[in-house]
């Protein structure tokens, strides 16, 4: 019993020595950094789960185009329209079946949302509807009206976040997810691998990959080595140090933004000049191609450039230590305690080389006269400092954090990070609050313009934080595979986008 793995292995060994050798041409192996705890579809917005499930097993009503400029595209919904009064009508695709054979219809959509909102199960996607009440009206099998209270202008976009399960799916954590996607989960050996195999009765185009095996290795060097040794075909997350082979290794923006959150309530951070000095003190360019990979961009907003309302006019703050010193001196002259200790708090393993980034930043801040120290903490402790309520009796803190928004709309970021009620906000500015509320309720060009204004106001006028970088990721893709990673590869990896050379 105890040695069953080994014994099983002996039998296996007679047929195959290296697994990749035994694969037929259209089977692939993907090596991920983090194992899946769950395969529950309603948790698919969590990136480690989404990478396997999203659009492979479970599909959503709508889908955001990350390869082209098509914006929001139909998936399980063929079309949608705003009926006014906060109600959106979705026309559902016909002839779609779940992998258990049942047909997809409007009741399944309603049930999927009921599961998300149930208190019997914890679903991540619930947070996107935090202050919104949804009511569902099944018009017919292929039509459903969804009314949001208050009105939600981006409801179709939010539909990219909710995976559809059949109405038979129980309201408990699923271990055998049933979906409409092109693949079914055929094996889940906890700790070892998850295997997806292609369905024959998928509604859409048959993807090229017939079988995908996911394995999990937390050591980046090993992930890279596996592709090199032919044991795996795709390693979506490798490090800059490993990504040295131009033939196989891709670098691409990964929708993550790194910034220093300023808590303005603590001296001396309430002073604008001090915040400007912080920004001027940091030589952002120096990081790129050294500690951080070539291709990393300087951030001017909390969201990546692919997001709605992107303000192309914004410039990263110039590195100007002299100006920083002047600003500090001016603040000090007004009685601001610029010599107060500042803690730069960062989370270990938040992103590659986070410690080094922290060390350099502290050095740069101290070079212009701040008294900064670095404090590296593990995830649970980081969380304490990141979200409200902030700990009592804290000194001035610059919290280094990484924020991911690949959803296309700033709404997923701005409220939390800048609104005075936002859980990770260090800002308390009526104009910011107003702009966020207006933009959230607006649609179309007006929405884009309002976001654009907010980005500029936050970055230039109030200097709310120290925006640092839009990060890049590195993937290694085996030579026989034709696949180009995108900004979304962090949170989803559609097998249908993979073909063979």
């Amino acid at each position, binding site marked *: 019993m105890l040695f069953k793995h080994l014994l099983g*292995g002996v039998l296996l060994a007679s047929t195959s020595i290296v697994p990749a050798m035994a694969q037929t041409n259209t089977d692939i192996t993907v090596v991920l950094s983090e194992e899946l705890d769950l395969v529950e579809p309603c948790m698919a917005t969590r990136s480690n789960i989404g990478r396997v499930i999203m659009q492979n097993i479970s599909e959503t009503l709508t889908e955001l185009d990350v390869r082209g400029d098509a914006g929001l595209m139909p998936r399980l919904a063929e079309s949608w329209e705003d009926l006014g009064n906060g109600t959106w009508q979705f026309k559902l695709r016909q002839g779609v079946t779940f992998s258990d054979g049942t047909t997809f219809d409007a009741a399944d959509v309603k049930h999927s949302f009921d599961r998300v909102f149930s*208190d019997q199960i914890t679903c991540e996607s619930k947070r996107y509807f935090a202050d919104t009440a949804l009511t569902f009206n099944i018009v017919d099998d292929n039509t459903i009206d969804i009314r949001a209270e208050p009105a939600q202008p981006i409801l179709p976009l939010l539909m990219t976040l909710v995976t559809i399960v059949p109405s038979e799916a129980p309201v408990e954590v699923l271990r055998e997810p049933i979906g409409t996607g092109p693949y079914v989960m055929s094996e889940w050996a906890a700790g070892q691998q998850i295997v997806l195999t292609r369905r024959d009765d998928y509604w859409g185009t048959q993807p090229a990959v017939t079988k995908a095996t996911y394995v999990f*290795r937390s050591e980046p060097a090993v992930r890279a080595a596996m592709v090199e040794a032919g044991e795996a075909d795709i390693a979506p997350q490798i490090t800059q140090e490993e990504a040295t082979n131009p033939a196989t290794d891709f670098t691409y923006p990964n929708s993550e933004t790194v910034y220093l959150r300023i808590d303005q309530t603590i001296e001396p951070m309430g002073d604008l000049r001090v915040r400007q000095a912080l920004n001027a003190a940091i030589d952002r360019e120096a990081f790129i191609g050294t500690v951080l990979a070539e291709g990393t961009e300087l951030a001017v907003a909390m969201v990546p450039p692919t997001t709605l309302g992107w303000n192309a006019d914004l410039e990263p703050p110039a590195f100007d230590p002299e100006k920083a010193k002047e600003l500090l001196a001016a603040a000090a002259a007004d009685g601001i305690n610029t010599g107060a200790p500042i803690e730069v708090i960062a989370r270990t393993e938040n992103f590659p080389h986070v410690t080094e980034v922290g060390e350099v930043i502290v050095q740069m801040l101290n070079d212009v006269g701040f008294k900064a120290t670095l404090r590296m903490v*593990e995830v*649970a402790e980081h969380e304490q400092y990141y*979200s409200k309520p902030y700990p009592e009796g804290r000194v001035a803190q610059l919290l280094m954090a990484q924020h991911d928004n690949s959803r296309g709309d700033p709404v997923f970021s701005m409220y939390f990070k800048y609104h005075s009620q936002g859980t990770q906000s260090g800002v308390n500015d009526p104009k910011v609050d107003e702009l966020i509320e207006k933009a959230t309720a607006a649609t179309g060009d007006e929405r884009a313009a309002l976001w654009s204004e907010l980005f500029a106001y936050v970055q230039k006028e109030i200097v709310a934080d120290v925006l640092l970088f839009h990060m890049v990721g590195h993937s290694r893709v085996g030579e026989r595979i034709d696949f180009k990673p995108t900004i979304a590869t962090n949170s989803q990896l559609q097998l249908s986008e993979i073909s063979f050379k």
Partner: protein
Amino acid sequence: MTKMIGQRAIASLLSLLGLMILVFFLSRLTGDPAVLFLPIDATEQMKEEFRALHGLDRPIIEQFGAYVWDLLHLDFGDSLRKARPAIDVVLEAYTWTLPLALITMALVMVAAIVLGALAAFKVGGFFDRLVSIVSLVGASAPDFWIAIVAIVIFSINFGWLPTSGVGTPLHWVLPIAVLFIRPFGLIVQVVRGSMLSALGAAYVKTARAKGVKNRPLIFVHTLRNAMLPVITVMGDQAAALLNGAVIVETIFGFPGIGKLMIDSILQRDFNVVLTAIMVTAIAIFIMNILIDIAYGVLDPRIRQ
């Protein structure tokens, strides 16, 4: 002997109880699992629902009562992260850790005993010094060095072995080899020291006067006498292996208890932490009892 084992078992159960209480309360000092399970921008309401769903909103003493009550029904609770019974998660990991630990320990035992005994027999010689230095270097070198260098050499350069993972016996070679180094380094020293004193014992003289050959002299007459201190150290090392081998599991993608335990601690998955610790503790207690039995088997004087 049976009485002794019975006493040990009762004492072990009491220790286990103490361990459980200690871990239960200490682990709950380390923060709220809700904020770790839910995304960073989850609402307070979601957190409250999560806590209510898993009973984390109740007073801690009540939680403890419920836990003990369930435990009496052999229910170890569910994993917060994995939404599965914690005991399943832990036992699954254990079916990997146990053979890994046992095979490694068996190899260490054989190698350390043979090399340590030979080193002691020719004490001060070239072989002796070589064994000492190599084992000490091995025991103090960072294990991830060895692991990654081994992957580069054996998997990438030579292509002899798979880089990582499980499945075939070949997959076990590198993890076992890397795990082998440290306990081997320690135990070979202990064997050498213990053999040195045993070789000076009077009965060795008797054996030589009987005309016993060198090999049985070392491996039959002396070794069994030298084994007692060796077994104690081996027990400690085996206990460490039974606790999981985090680095090796992490690098080689080996789904053992060490990585599970670390992840569960960092994610505050209390039920898994508790279950893993208790299962490990039971394994260690059983091993300690086996060691006591081994003492008795090896040395008849202890049997009484």
